[in-house]
């Protein structure tokens, strides 16, 4: 049998197995990576020797990894051809993108954990800042405030957001839908501080000037939260194949039940992710809460009366208005930041478990 050359130029090379023609060996990427890092390390060594400064390990690794990308592309182009090379290049880039994003994450993580650990003690989670100056004190009041206000914001935003996205995907046609879509987009652009001002002014109308309450803070947060919920849920609902809706309709299922029992469960994972993102988005807001919910050192369980402290405001004020000794304030700030992150992580984890429970039962 004659091996004929096909129009694909890479295939015709006469090697034992024509299907392996012109492939880099499996180990090639690693070899190239190691080589790239070695080259970079050597260059850094020369530079550091020349300038007398300390050896920069991070820089050497980073530049080495950077070097790998063109290197693998070059080798692959030479040996495997353009298409394979492109594939390898994209693989390297995509992996690189992920690793790149890990840099700030790891850096942030290390910073927050090491600096936050100093005050991660029992007092911190059993005390408020009432009558505390200098060292000591805790963040019970801020945790309570954050949970209550974020919770209230979620209670307001998730139904509205979800129903709006359902409206947009399932019901909306014509002008109103287009208007809503557009306005939701515009809503994403409300600066958080303006949301705070608006909520503050709104409640000033009803409750008298100058009232700062948890609920005003929650309303400000909802303003920021709703567009994120709508946008992400809308995207997820649109991905539900029409076939499934048709299947349900054909069984004589009313539209609303189809949405509740078929469309929502199918997209639940994505929606949960979106909702979690929206919560994460607002739970860390400082500016609007400073304006709408005020500042207090005491615990307040009542959303509708009195000022409420929140973790981000606490972090911010501890950092911005340091007293004596400053370190005590900084320690509290970082420990509160760590707490906030842990709270969001925990919420995220719970949401994922919930989502997994309802998620479509197919692969991936």
């Amino acid at each position: 049998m004659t091996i004929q050359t096909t129009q694909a130029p890479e295939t015709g090379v006469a090697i034992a197995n024509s299907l392996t023609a012109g492939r880099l060996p499996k180990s090639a990427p690693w070899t190239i990576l190691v080589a790239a890092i070695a080259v970079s390390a050597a260059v850094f060594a020369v530079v550091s020797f020349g300038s007398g400064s300390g050896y920069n390990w991070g820089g050497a690794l980073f530049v080495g990894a950077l070097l790998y990308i063109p290197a693998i592309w070059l080798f692959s182009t030479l040996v495997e051809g353009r298409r394979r090379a492109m594939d390898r290049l994209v693989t390297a880039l995509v992996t690189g993108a992920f690793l790149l994003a890990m840099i700030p994450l790891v850096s942030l993580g290390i910073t927050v954990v090491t600096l936050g650990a100093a005050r991660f003690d029992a007092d911190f989670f059993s005390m408020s800042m009432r009558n505390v100056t200098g060292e000591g004190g805790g963040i019970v009041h801020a945790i309570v405030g954050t949970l209550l206000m974020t919770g209230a914001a979620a209670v307001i935003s998730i139904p509205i957001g979800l129903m709006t996205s359902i409206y947009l995907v399932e019901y909306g046609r014509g002008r109103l839908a287009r208007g809503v879509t557009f306005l939701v987009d515009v809503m994403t652009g409300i600066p958080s501080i303006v949301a705070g001002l608006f909520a503050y002014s709104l409640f000033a109308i009803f409750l008298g000037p100058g009232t700062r309450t948890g609920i005003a803070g929650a309303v400000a947060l909802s303003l920021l939260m709703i567009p994120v919920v709508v946008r992400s849920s809308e995207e997820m609902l649109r991905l539900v194949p029409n076939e499934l809706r048709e299947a349900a309709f054909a069984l004589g299922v009313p539209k609303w039940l189809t949405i509740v029992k078929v469309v929502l469960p199918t997209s639940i994972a994505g929606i949960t992710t979106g909702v979690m993102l929206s919560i994460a988005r607002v739970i860390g807001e400082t500016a609007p809460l400073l304006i709408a919910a005020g500042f207090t050192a005491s615990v307040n369980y009542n959303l509708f009366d009195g000022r409420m402290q929140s973790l981000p405001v606490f972090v911010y004020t501890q950092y911005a208005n340091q007293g004596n000794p400053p370190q005590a304030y900084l320690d509290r700030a970082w420990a509160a930041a760590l707490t906030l992150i842990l709270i969001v992580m925990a919420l995220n984890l719970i949401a994922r478990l919930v989502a997994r429970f309802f998620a479509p039962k197919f692969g991936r």
Partner: protein
Amino acid sequence: ASNEGGAAPSESASTLSGNLVGAGASSQDAAQQSWIAGFQTANPDVTVDYDPSGSGAGRETFLEGASNFAGSDRAFKDEELAAGGFKKCAADSTIVELPLYISPIAVIFNVEGVDSLDLDAATVAGIFAGTITNWNDPAIAATNPDATLPDLAITPVHRSDDSGTTENFTEYLGAAAADVWTWEADGVWPLEGGEAAQGTSGLVDAVSNGNGTIGYADASRAGDLGTVSIKVGDEFVPYSPEAAAAIVDHSPFAEGRAEGDLAIDIDRTSEEAGVYPIVLVSYLIACGQYEDPANVDLVKGYLSYIASPEGQDTAAADAGSAPISDSLREKITAAIDSIK
């Protein structure tokens, strides 16, 4: 929370109870927190909240009648007083402005091997105006013969936010070095460009993280950074609470104010020995007469506590402020007593 609740079987015979709300200058925040702690401990049934939302916001809030008292890095201006409209106060009431928080502003810098410098107002102004750009500039060397000044670019750092600290600092520069510093006193840094940082903390961070940086900040936050002794008369005065209190004592009260309105015109050019001219005076502002008498006792109680030696000392300990002098305290106490 374990520290909450006034039910502690305290021996205090306090009869005060209720909720007191203030808002204003964030410069006072640390001091306010320690005053609040002290006052609440003595009066377990009282809750005082202070929003460190900023002087402007504090004054607006007070105007709207949304707070019982305000903290502000400057007194109300004459025209603002004339416009009136303080919602919490009785119709024809004046307001009480008390200079209860006095804090020196330190000029801080970060230059390796230099802990302190002696500078005159013109040099400081030159540095911040960008006419003196290197640490080995002869103008600096002239007053610091012993310091080893590096050949290093000066990076002056100013506040990016609108702040009382900036206003006081630029007021000092304008008064004491009028030839070099031709801008008006303003809470917003008047020059374009330059390194800017948000808040005292941001500025301190920027100065400590940079190299060859210089800035100005509440003295309590100077930490390990190098600080400047300012030339007053013929000597160089380092910042200190006493020196800061002294300049206030040597300054006149603003004219044409109502009784109890103790706004001070700080004499930045004073040549008096032992005064430190770069200070921030922050006021506590209350009504001369409240529309609703319910809050009067609370306000008076709280302000009296702040003005007391005990109150001034806790603030000095917790916030690094300068305790007011006894002579000033007398006038303030009289003003507090006049509140109805």
